[in-house]
């Protein structure tokens, strides 16, 4: 017979079991990140895959976000004669929030999916088991290099995104909205504080870790054939995106509410 309490109980147990598995996976991954041997060549390869190949998508996202931001702030602020704040709000908005969050989401879509698909395929074709039989720990060889590479690369990507985003706002501000070139740049620099940039970079590092963790976790535990790998890929992107947004709130609160 249909029992709503049993249904809630099963869902709760399943949630905590999944959270526990993820925590153990993350702990195991971190343990191999800090313990030698380190596969530096693999870390380098992953950094190129995550960073260099994500540059176009992250750059374009940042450029258009900066442009839209300048336009919207100008339209909004003109209602109470505060148009001069456009440059300052663009740079703070980009460095604190939009740069790291949008870059994180775009990279999650590209990289978490790729990691889940690659590790998922390796799982279902027994390549991960083969690693173990060849005296190679799959966590050290597959998971740790991805976690390290994503955590290091995301702040670099976000720093580039910050610059491109501010440049997008600058282009719209000066070419379309009639701001003076020099005064726009001066307003951008004058009101920007180091913590604005630093908080964004810390967020980026955390997002990088999370998106790699989700890609590896779902790929590593992939089951079945093509359908299982497909499900792992979808779950990786969805869970990475949700975790990025949740972590964004927590880090923002940590940095700016005290």
């Amino acid at each position, binding site marked *: 017979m249909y029992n709503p309490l049993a249904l809630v109980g099963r869902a709760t147990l399943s949630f905590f079991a999944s959270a526990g598995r993820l925590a153990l996976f993350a702990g195991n991954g971190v343990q191999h990140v800090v313990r030698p041997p380190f596969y530096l060549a693999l870390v380098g390869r992953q950094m190129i895959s995550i960073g260099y190949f994500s540059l176009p998508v992250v750059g374009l996202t940042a450029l258009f976000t900066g442009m839209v931001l300048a336009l919207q702030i100008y339209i909004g602020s003109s209602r109470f004669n505060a148009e001069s704040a456009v440059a300052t709000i663009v740079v703070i908005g980009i460095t604190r929030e939009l740069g790291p969050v949008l870059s994180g989401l775009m990279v999650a879509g590209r990289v978490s999916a790729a990691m889940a698909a690659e590790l998922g*395929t*390796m799982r279902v*074709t*027994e*390549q991960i*088991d*083969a690693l*173990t*039989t*060849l*005296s*190679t720990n799959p966590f050290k*060889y597959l998971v740790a290099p991805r976690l390290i590479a994503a955590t290091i690369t995301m702040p670099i990507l976000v720093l580039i995104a910050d610059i491109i985003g501010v440049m997008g706002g600058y282009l719209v501000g000066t070419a379309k909205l009639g701001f003076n070139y020099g005064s726009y740049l001066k307003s951008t620099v004058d009101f920007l504080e180091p913590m604005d940039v630093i908080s964004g970079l810390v967020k980026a590092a955390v997002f990088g870790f999370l998106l790699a963790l989700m890609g590896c976790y779902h790929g590593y535990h992939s089951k079945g054939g093509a359908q299982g790998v497909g499900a792992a890929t979808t779950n990786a992107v969805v869970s990475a995106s949700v975790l990025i947004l949740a972590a964004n709130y927590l880090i923002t609160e940590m940095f700016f509410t005290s």
Partner: protein
Amino acid sequence: MTTPKLKLQGVAKHFGHKRVLDGIDLEVGKGESLVVIGGSGTGKSVMLKCVLGLIRPDRGVIEVDGENVVGLRGFAKDAYLSKFGMLFQGGALFDSLKVWQNVAFGLIQGRGMKRTHAKEIAIDKLGRVGLNADVGELFPAELSGGMQKRVALARAIASEPEIIFFDEPTTGLDPIMADVINDLIVECVRDLGASTLTITHDMASARKIADKVAMIYKGHIIWHGSKDEVDHSGNAFVDQFIHGRADGPITMDVLKP
């Protein structure tokens, strides 16, 4: 009495409500080739994965050279795994690495050998399975199924293991290529002097590779004996299986039209 190279005693494993292994007892002597036959889903692959530490059994003892290896971790696990070579059913070659890198993987990553030396050994092992050095520079996706099996065999023997597992070595191959692989397995194992445990449902392969044969059914070893005894086992399950008959004590869960 000599210590068997590999011994399983009362090994059991279940997944959810499904009891896959229900007290497996097996022994493989030094230099001996044991072939375990059985239908699909009878627990053959799970048994191998338990021995390799990929799956932890619920109970039972697995001894390698007289030492229980269940639950070993870290360096102790690496040390015992270094005694094993494994030929996976689908080859399990690493797509992102060249053929020679696949063969040399265990030597470079597992044993810390220099790449140049490991490459020489990999090319030598490729030659051992009838592939020339040029193949070493290709990627696995560029090879036929038979060539992939040969590369997987070269990888399994590259570190000259003491025990080699073959998981369905001839599955998916045409009969001639299957026989070529069987011959290569027999030659390579004889040269190395290794003990082998093969799981298969290909009786031609079993007859060629085996010194001894055991049959697994519903998680139990229901019969074991020498290769010559398999045709006169007096066991209805074995008879049905080796002759491939639909009628007999082994029932398949297949819906009939």
